[in-house]
């Protein structure tokens, strides 16, 4: 397999996963996060990249996340691979957790070409709605193995809300 063929092969790959991809888009529309280029940290130009899907001005990535709730706290986990801890900002705004930051692109020192570029770089902002009021001043965040984990104590501890609705 020649290196030059990689573009076609990746194209075929995307077609084969298109069905799953659409399903993912529908089920996790909120996980699709836009990455914008940051001044001072240029991405490769289109001329340096052979990946037909690549556009330097626009990057999208699915930042998978989950929210866990028990009677004392909410735990939000968000996949943020390849970040520096100091480049992640975590805020609690009204009833949402706002995670923003910048994923830096590191240029290779040698002359070469980017054959495939699927990872997203740049600045991003992700809003995770919170189902209950939390004590933001007691929140704790940790970043490990490329996953951000934020623990938010509930303002009013209690079991997850569940309301049964009768069907007439």
């Amino acid at each position, binding site marked *: 397999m020649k290196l030059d063929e990689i573009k076609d092969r990746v194209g075929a*790959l995307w077609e084969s996963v298109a069905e799953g991809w659409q399903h993912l888009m529908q089920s996790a529309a909120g996980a699709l996060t836009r990455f914008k280029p940051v001044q001072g940290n240029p991405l490769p130009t289109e001329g340096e990249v052979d990946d037909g899907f690549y556009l330097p001005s626009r990057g999208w990535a699915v930042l998978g996340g*989950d929210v866990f*709730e*028990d009677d004392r706290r909410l*735990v939000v986990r968000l996949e*943020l*691979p390849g970040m520096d801890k100091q480049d992640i900002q975590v805020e609690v705004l009204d009833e949402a957790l706002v995670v923003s930051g910048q994923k830096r692109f590191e240029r290779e020192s040698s002359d070469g070409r980017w054959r495939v570029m*699927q990872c997203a770089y740049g600045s991003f902002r992700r809003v995770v709605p919170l189902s209950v009021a939390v004590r933001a001043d007691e929140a704790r965040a940790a970043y490990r193995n*490329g*996953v951000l984990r934020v623990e938010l104590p509930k303002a009013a501890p209690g079991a997850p809300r569940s309301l049964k609705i009768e069907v007439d």
Partner: protein
Amino acid sequence: MSTSNENHTGQGEALLPAVDVFEDEGGITLFADLPGVPREQLGLHVESDTLTIEGQMSPELAGSGEATHVELSLPRYRRAFTLSRELDVEKVSAAFEHGVLRLRIPKASHARPRKIEVQVG
């Protein structure tokens, strides 16, 4: 090198990690996003001309309760690559930090373009 989706090999479904591939004269550098995978759960296998990257996410949610919103239903990554023969898989070097795997696969020395300086006397 090419990528192929080998999720149908009977090992269950797995997520396909996003990758960047950079090629220069000396070889290729591959970056793969594997967030949530601890170092000890990362597997790299080379079999003839196929390189397979596998990673198992660690289930970190201890205690009771229910996840109210889940997007990470497949806790495993898997992606296979067919390597071109000019690459020397014996000399793969790997680094894994913050959920990003970086692999450097050099080209075999005979496959590298050689520069021959011509001296004019």
